[in-house]
């Protein structure tokens, strides 16, 4: 590996960026930084101490042990997954959609189809031209009373 010459500020940056432990320093700067610290008349103790303090705090943030049963939960995932792998399923859906309608127009088209179906369903439930007005009791309906209620009045 090529030897890199570092300046004091480069070494300070190494402490600031990567902490006090040389094992965490980048490979391309570790040896050069250690050599510079050893050879320099400047003391890097305060930087090293400050970095080590933060490292100690970060190291105290422990990950809890994996719960029993978690691995089994992960191993069971293929059983819960659809038999068609997602990539294949998604690709075929996208291809189908792209073949039928370009871009995002499929959403608008789907909305139109739903509106047409709803319109048709509403249409077949409305009174037709031949329907008797008496049977529908439109006048009573308009007044908010039924025929039976009218008799009582």
């Amino acid at each position, binding site marked *: 590996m090529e030897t890199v010459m570092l300046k004091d500020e480069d070494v300070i*940056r190494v402490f600031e960026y*990567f*902490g006090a432990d040389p094992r*965490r320093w980048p490979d391309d700067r570790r040896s050069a930084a250690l050599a510079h610290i050893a050879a320099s008349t400047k003391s890097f103790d305060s930087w090293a101490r400050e970095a080590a303090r933060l490292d100690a705090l970060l190291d105290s943030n422990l*990950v809890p042990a994996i719960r029993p049963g978690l691995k089994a*939960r*992960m191993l069971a995932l293929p059983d*819960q997954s659809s038999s068609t*792998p997602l990539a294949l399923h998604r690709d075929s859906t996208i291809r189908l959609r792209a073949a039928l309608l370009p871009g995002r127009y499929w959403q608008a088209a789907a909305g139109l189809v739903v509106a047409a179906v709803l319109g048709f369903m509403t249409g077949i439930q409305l009174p037709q031209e031949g329907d008797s007005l008496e049977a529908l009791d439109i006048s009573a309906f308009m007044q908010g009373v039924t025929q039976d209620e009218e008799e009582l009045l």
Partner: protein
Amino acid sequence: MQDGHALASLSDEALMERVGRQDRTAYAALVERHLEHMIAVAFRMAGGRAEAEDIVQEAFLRLWRSAPAWQARNARFSTWFHRVVINLCIDLSRKRKWLPLEAAGDIDDPAPSPEEKAEDHDMQSQIADALASLPHQQRAAVTLCYYEGLSNREAADVLQTSVKAVESLLVRARRGLAEKLASFRSEICETR
């Protein structure tokens, strides 16, 4: 199908190729190899055990489902899988900001005891809070480089950025953490 010993010697990429052919033993080998690391990544990114488990579950599900198409991609498995987990964590934390109260569901843990409440002020929870307060990318850089020991190059590949940008994220993260934890340290000093 091969036994566990033979599979253990295979690379992640070779295992992934087998998973693409619906080989469950290869899938189990990948779970065995990466579960603990990915839980650690998700825990530090998401800040909670239940969230970390859900994120890693989703990541393994995606692994299984996308394995047939994965072999065509030009990326190391660990880079790709770290990216999946990190992106899921970022997505979750973005959504969490906007979730209505009802969507929060039941609380995972019972109400804390007085002792546990006192422990909330301990160093670990303060550090977790400080980490959680960092912007996503900075948190991801610290998680990958500091905790997971990825090189800056590997972290840059996961985050799809440059090495220089990763170093910049790291220094900003460490400065931010030092600042937040300095106030915590002074609080502790005042109370003692």
